[in-house]
């Protein structure tokens, strides 16, 4: 049977009815999401391999709804102590909004809905990318800064998503890229770099590199995720594993005891216990990003 034709008659199938996402968007925003966008489930196919698509998580998936929320407060961004945001940079409100929208879809529409699995299940890999979901839902575009998705108004947001069999009218991928911002384009012309690239340059032991073409668009980007992990997840799963290799290999009991009681290992265990501490612990490329700065300026 050809796609789009009826098996019985061979005539074209009527287009599938798609619901407006408006009421669900309102529910999500009422539950704490700052922004809500919708992507078609099939839109993922072009960008991610099999095994990481919405239909791999939920057979019959039609739509992905993405909720975004701000992380640190304006005050936290101003703290000179980087550990402040390393511990308090995330409050998970977008996940609450996703749960509320899931409940609403299953109870009011009678379609299936699940929270998209975004926690790592194999090394760094989650089953689904929330960053790609945000792009496809029209909430932002990738930046030169670690490929983080920037919302045109708010800049850095945290995202959670749900996958549903409910066919919804999707939002569009943004026609205009958020990154680079105009000042960054100008800066690149003059200095050959941007604030984020300068804050964490690959050639000086950092994570980032990139280029902007004459049309003011990103033409090249480089992101060393493994180095970024040592910074953004400084204390947590990775540092515990690194420490354990050292501790287990240390033959001297006194040195071993010192390693176990060290500030580094203690912080690592603490970060794992209080999981908010292990989610985002480096904000340096975002700290200097001009996008969304207006929301970080208060009295």
């Amino acid at each position, binding site marked *: 049977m050809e796609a789009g034709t009826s098996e019985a008659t061979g005539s074209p199938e009527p287009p599938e009815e798609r619901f407006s996402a408006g009421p669900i968007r309102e529910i999500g925003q009422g539950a704490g999401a700052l922004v809500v966008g919708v992507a078609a489930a099939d839109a993922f196919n*072009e*960008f*991610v*391999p*099999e*095994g*990481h698509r919405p239909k791999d998580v939920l057979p019959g998936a039609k739509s992905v709804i993405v909720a975004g929320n701000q992380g640190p407060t304006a005050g936290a961004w*101003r*703290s*000179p*102590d*980087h550990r402040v945001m*390393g511990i308090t940079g995330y409050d998970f409100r977008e996940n609450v909004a996703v749960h509320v929208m899931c409940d609403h879809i299953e109870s009011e529409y009678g379609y299936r809905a699940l929270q998209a699995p975004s926690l790592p299940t*194999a*090394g*760094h*890999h989650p089953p689904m990318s929330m960053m*790609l979901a945000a*792009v*496809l839902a029209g909430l932002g*575009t*990738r930046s030169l800064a670690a*490929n983080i998705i920037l919302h045109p108004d708010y800049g850095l947001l945290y995202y959670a998503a749900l996958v549903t069999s409910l066919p919804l009218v999707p939002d569009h*991928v943004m026609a205009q*890229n958020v990154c680079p911002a105009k000042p960054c384009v100008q800066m690149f012309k003059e*200095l050959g770099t941007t*604030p984020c690239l*300068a*804050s964490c340059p690959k050639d000086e*032991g*950092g994570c980032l590199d990139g280029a902007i073409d004459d049309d003011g*668009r*990103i033409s*090249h*980007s*480089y*992101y*060393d*995720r*493994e*180095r970024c*992990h*040592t*910074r953004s997840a*400084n204390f947590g799963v*990775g*540092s515990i*594993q*690194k*420490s354990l*290799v*050292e501790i287990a290999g240390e033959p001297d009991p006194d040195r071993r005891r010192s390693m176990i009681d060290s500030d*580094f290992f203690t912080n690592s265990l603490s970060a794992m216990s209080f999981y908010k501490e292990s989610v985002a*612990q*480096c904000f*340096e490329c975002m*700290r*200097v990003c*001009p996008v969304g700065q207006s929301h970080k300026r208060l009295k």
Partner: protein
Amino acid sequence: MSFFFVEPEIYERYREEILRLSDSFQIDIQEHLPADVRKRALSDAEIADRLGLEERVVREIRVVAERDYYPIEEWERAIEFKDKACRAFSRHGLSYVFKYRDEL
């Protein structure tokens, strides 16, 4: 087998290639880039196909290699990097990345 892990010899043979094919180093992945320019990482299953290994072996090598890539000293350096950058921003604002790099 009481506990599944890869032997060091197998790991050493494939670690670099597997990391290169996965998403440890992300180059030109922006969605707006033309399809012939835009790159994407391969999944463990795709890498396994390419290298003629089992998917589980590829996954295992990748996961170990992700953790193994930088020594523990890099975690220590990360603390210093963030402390200096955060304090420089607090003192000088965004311009620290250009005018006050000597403070990093």
